[in-house]
């Protein structure tokens, strides 16, 4: 039975909405809280781990580079301290030393040179023609003369190639001299350039002026923020690694990790795009969000379907309850009418009996001699007979009413279907007569009795007969009611030759609240109640109708024995 559209639609819509909302809130709240908490914790620990990893990496690289520089400086110091200025000023000797170093450490040392305190290179060993070169004005020379050991920044110098030098200053016969070695820029650069993580992670070295000391993997402008912020840092702890996250000029967020090298002269910077660095984290968060969204979609879908289904069931249960209530009311009405009728019948019986007996008394008296000769004797006798006949008629009517009333009992009892129909027909005959409708009955005589609630059967038959009379009232017609036994079932057929039911209405006539009668005339419950009653009895009710030809209702009732107690 399809849920009926009635005034309660708003209530059910609200109920559906409330159920959906409740299911969604109850399911979403823990899901969102738990997922957010886990994601938040995961994000924090991932950040911490990544930062620790990057700091560790930079620290390690810083130590690598520092030890590289120290090593090279150590090598040169060893030369300067082992050999005197005179020995080293011998270019072939110097060449031998260079070759020895190159054999030992590879092509890291490009050349060696001995420079006197006036800045003139007195001896040179290497691939360039730099013998007798004058460095008196070179920055590195000035600084090398101040400190005993010195590592320069990267510069182009006389050779026009980027390089840096390591110098050791010493004293020879009261005069200062310098042993200098050029470190291969490529070898040094490779040390730093090899630091690569992800797609955007790379490292480079800046000096205090913000000049690049290595060739970075990607182009950058070191004099701009945030490099300047690093350069402002005054080194306190050489082991300290600084880390910041900042947006660069293009608006991309970058992670910068930096550590000072070479006693604070240089800054090793590792830089990576934050998105690249947190790629795995973001991917995990992305997947989590997709899962949560899918879950949310699933919850919403389930909530909607579940709520709709539940509300549909509630609608159906409410309708059933409604129908049962109506049925109880109808049955109650019928029982009240029955009781009333029985009371009236009893009350009428006595006066009718007295009237008939008084007429009988007159008839007795008329038999006396004195009245035998009366000229109106025939007329008296006719009148008395008529009184007796009409009295008998009254008796029959009251009997029918009493039989009907007796059956307004809703208990299941042994019932003769033919008798029930007879009584209902008798009660409906008067109304039928007014509508020029003749009722014909054709009962199978030997129908078995069956156990059912007679009041319910009366209600069904009264409904069908009343509907038929309603339909034929204007034009008149014939109502045929028949019974027959078909295998194990009693078939009751109520057929009229009225206007019929349009085909479009036929499938809906057993639906509750469906009516074609004018407003106020029908509740639309009659046939649905009949349907409910017959279903409850384990039978079925069907309808055939042809417009302008008539309607036939067929009830099939199983023959039942007494109910088990």
């Amino acid at each position, binding site marked *: 039975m399809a849920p009926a559209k009635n005034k309660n639609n708003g209530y059910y819509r609200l109920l559906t909405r409330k159920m959906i909302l409740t299911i969604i809130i109850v399911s979403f709240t823990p899901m969102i809280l738990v997922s957010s908490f886990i994601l938040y914790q995961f994000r924090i620990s991932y950040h911490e781990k990544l930062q620790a990893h990057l700091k560790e990496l930079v620290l390690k690289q810083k130590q690598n580079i520092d030890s590289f520089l120290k090593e090279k400086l150590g090598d040169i110091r060893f030369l300067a301290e082992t050999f005197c200025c005179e020995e080293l000023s011998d270019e072939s000797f110097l060449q031998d030393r260079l070759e020895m170093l190159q054999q030992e450490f590879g092509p890291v040392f490009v050349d060696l040179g001995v420079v006197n305190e006036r800045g003139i290179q007195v001896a040179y060993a290497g691939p360039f023609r730099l013998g007798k070169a004058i460095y008196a004005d070179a920055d590195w020379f000035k600084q090398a003369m101040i400190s005993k050991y010195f590592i320069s920044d990267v510069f182009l110098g006389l050779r026009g190639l980027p390089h840096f030098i390591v110098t050791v200053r010493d004293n020879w016969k009261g005069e200062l001299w310098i042993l200098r070695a050029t470190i291969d820029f490529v070898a040094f650069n490779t040390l730093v350039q090899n630091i690569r993580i992800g797609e955007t992670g790379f490292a480079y070295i800046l000096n205090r002026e913000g000049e690049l000391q290595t060739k970075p993997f990607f182009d950058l402008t070191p004099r701009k923020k945030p490099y300047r912020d690093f350069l402002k840092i005054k080194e306190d702890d050489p082991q300290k690694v600084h880390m910041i996250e900042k947006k660069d000029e293009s608006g991309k967020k970058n992670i910068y990790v930096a550590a000072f090298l070479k006693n604070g002269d240089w800054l090793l910077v590792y830089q990576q795009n934050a998105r690249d660095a947190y790629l795995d984290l973001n991917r995990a968060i992305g997947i989590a969000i997709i899962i949560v969204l899918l879950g949310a979609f699933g919850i919403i879908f389930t909530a909607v379907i579940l709520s709709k289904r539940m509300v549909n069931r509630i609608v159906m249960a409410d309708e059933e309850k409604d129908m049962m209530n109506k049925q109880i009311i109808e049955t109650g009405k019928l029982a009240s009418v029955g009781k009333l009728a029985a009371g009236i019948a009893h009350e009428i019986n*006595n006066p009718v009996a*007295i009237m008939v007996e008084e007429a009988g008394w007159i008839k007795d008296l008329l038999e006396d001699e004195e009245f035998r000769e009366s000229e109106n004797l025939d007329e008296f006798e006719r009148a008395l007979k008529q009184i007796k006949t009409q009295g008998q008629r009254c008796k029959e009517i009251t*009997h029918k009413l009493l039989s009907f009333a*007796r059956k307004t009992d809703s208990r299941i009892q042994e019932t003769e279907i033919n008798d029930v129909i007879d009584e209902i027909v008798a009660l409906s005959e008067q109304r039928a007569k007014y509508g020029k409708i003749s009722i014909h009955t054709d009962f199978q005589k030997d129908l078995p009795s069956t156990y059912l609630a007679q009041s319910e059967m009366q209600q069904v038959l009264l409904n069908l007969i009343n509907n038929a009379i309603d339909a034929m009232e204007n034009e008149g017609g014939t109502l045929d009611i028949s019974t027959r036994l078909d295998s194990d079932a009693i078939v009751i057929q109520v057929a009229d030759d009225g206007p019929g039911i349009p085909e479009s209405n036929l499938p809906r006539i057993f639906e509750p609240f469906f009516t074609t009668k004018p407003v106020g005339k029908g509740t639309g419950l009659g046939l649905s109640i009949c349907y409910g009653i017959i279903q409850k009895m384990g039978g079925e009710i069907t309808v055939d109708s042809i417009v302008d030809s008539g309607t036939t209702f067929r009830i099939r009732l199983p023959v039942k024995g007494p109910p088990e107690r």
Partner: protein
Amino acid sequence: MSKHADKQIKLLLVDDEKGFVDVIAKRMSKRNIDVTKAYSGTEALKALRMTDFDVAVLDLKMEDMDGIEILKLFKKIVPDLPVIMLTGHGSEAAARDGIKFGAFDYLTKPCDFEELIVKIKEAYQHQI
């Protein structure tokens, strides 16, 4: 049925519907039945103690006493008295109870007068 053919039957008619009792009594006396009228159970019991009756007709539905109770008392006072009960239509169950307690037969109201006469005569014959 000739009204003088048999011995006069002494009948006790008990019904609280006065009009009905009166007319029936009149019609019966015309048929050689001596009717004593009682309009209540109490009156009926009083009459029963004073006179011997051949047959009693008893309405089961009266205001002062339940018909079955009166029947039981009748049977206590005069166990051999045949009692014909009058019941309303649909109260046949009560009438069947009456048969169990010794009533002769029953008729449903409103009954046909001639039928009642036949029943009374049957009861009278039975009593003899």
